[in-house]
């Protein structure tokens, strides 16, 4: 008897096929669960965060500001806090830089005397306006989109900025959008 054509062989193949189908059905929710955070629409992470009233930022100075990430869980603890550098150029003109160096994400520090941001990891340096001064970073500091609303400085934040997840991808570096005219 030809075993490869027997009823048992057919049933065996059928059982394998059936399990393959079940496997696919099972794989869809598993992959969906696993890759959920990755597939999520990126724009859904960002929202407007208030950094404080405009008057808190002296003109011509750059200050470190902390905010709570718009989306956190109860067990995020301190890691849900984010720092950023706020530069008030004059009047309503602001720049808000991410703390993360554009090279590999380490926290840059502002040195008011030499008007430089310096990175402790690999020595990236940026000028006061966030543009690249020297070192290995491939670009200037990441900048958050910002606006002034009812006298408060707001930024659009929610993601750790990297070269692929820039704080605001469209705005070219340094270029300041004219601040929206709102009563201070």
């Amino acid at each position, binding site marked *: 008897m030809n075993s490869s054509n027997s009823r048992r062989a057919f049933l065996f193949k059928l059982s394998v096929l059936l399990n393959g189908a079940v496997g696919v059905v099972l794989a869809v929710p598993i992959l969906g669960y696993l890759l959920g955070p990755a597939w999520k629409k990126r724009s859904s*992470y960002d929202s407007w965060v208030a950094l404080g009233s405009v008057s808190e930022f002296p003109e011509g100075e750059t200050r470190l500001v902390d905010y709570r990430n718009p989306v956190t869980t109860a067990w995020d603890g*301190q890691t849900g806090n984010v720092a950023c550098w706020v530069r008030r150029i004059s009047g309503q003109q602001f720049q808000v830089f991410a703390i993360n160096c554009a090279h590999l994400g380490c926290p840059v520090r502002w040195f008011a005397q030499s008007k430089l941001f310096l990175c402790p990891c*690999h020595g990236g340096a940026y000028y006061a306006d966030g543009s690249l001064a*020297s070192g290995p970073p491939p670009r200037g500091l990441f900048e958050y989109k910002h606006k002034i609303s009812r006298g408060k400085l707001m930024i659009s934040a929610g993601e750790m900025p990297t070269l692929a997840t820039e704080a605001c991808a469209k705005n070219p570096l340094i270029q300041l959008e004219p601040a929206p005219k709102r009563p201070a």
Partner: protein
Amino acid sequence: MTKLKQRSIEVYDWIERRLGLAKPVVEAAEHPIPASSASWWYVFGSAAVVLLGLQVITGILLALVYVPSASDAWNSLQFLNHNVTLGWFLRALHGWGSNFMIAIVLIHMTQVFLFGAYKFPRELTWIVGVLLLLLTLGMAFSGQVLRFDQDAYWGLGIGASIMGRVPFIGALLVHALLGGPIIAGATLSRFFTLHVFVIPGILLASVGLHVWMVLRLGINEWPMPGRLVRKATYEREYQELVRKDGVPFVPDAVWKDVIFAAAILLAVIACAFFFGPFGPTGQPDPTVIQTAPKPDFAFLWIYAVLAFLPPSLETPFLLVVPVVLIGFLLLLPLAAGEGEKHWSRRPVAVLMVALIAVTLGVFTRLGTYTPWSPIMDAWASDPVPAEYLRGRTPLERQGALVLQDKQCRDCHSLGGLGGLRGPALDSIAARMTEDQITRQVLQGGGNMPSYGNALNPSETTALVHFLLTLRGQNLTPAVDASQRLTQH
């Protein structure tokens, strides 16, 4: 007594009749190996397994207390260090065990490479071994993340930033790595899962395969210059060698493994006892930016390489070189599966080992003192040496103040103190003229930012005049040769 003995044998027989493991285990233990392989050079593989066992046991014990939550992990480590009886020692054992395991795995790999043991028919053993190396490094990195401190936090930032450089799917990879938009609770949970379930599972299974193949194919014989491996004849020659000149693995060879394993365990225990656990360093609070993050020892060389790559080459380098290196290791036994095994007839292999060892050593050394990083507080903590101020004019002394105040010292050293990012300034005036110094300060260049915006004209004048007094051991000042030509 004889009755008890009789009873024990009965129980053993009862179990063995059902289990049937004793016979194959005894056979495996007593399998003959070439007498030349019962050597002290062949002890590293078993030592790696012993260290893996130590890591599993200490890891399970640490998991009794550790809390894999971003808000509490750091506190639970402090609790382990200070409140749990001998918690510090268990953490130290696990940390030092990890360092020793990486070292032993690398030594094992080097020995196998130099002895040509990856050649036919042991190609797949090598390939699984490469996988084991990567898994070991994966354990080291994920373990460093579980020590959820400042270094772990910013190390994740570096990982995410590298992922962000991948074209097209960069954002997807960043979010998959972090488990969300930022480094937070989900990130730690992911790495906990990797470190405790996923990687150890694959690691233990791969070790099983690796050892299974070693038993099945026989341990590599001590290579002899001129005795070439040929696929057609090797297995017969090996059988012949083992038949003529073989010794049972247990006990003739195993005692060296056992003694070495004991020595290694003692070394881990001694390091753990005398040097203590690693960290945790500062809390994983991203708003505390007074930090200079650094990876663990095994990854320092990568950290150093990342400081030296030109920006335009960095992304291709990061994405291509690891693939090429791992691909090379995986394909090595397939491309060079036959021929000479002995190191004395394989100069390229020996040179490669030397080159890789020197490269890793140099970059690791550089990683320990990071000369490319500015020293962030040098300007406020390292004074200008007094002899550089003696007999100077008021303008020159004012320049010394400008040098400190404008943070030049963060990157430039004076009298051996200060950053190493830029050249030491002790003899700068012997290398550069007044015009050159002024230009360099104001416009920057060659890795120096321009200070035109940070200095007013009088500060610049004072600074340059001070720098012109720095001529080392009274060296001749630098001169502009073209100026002298035009004067004649």
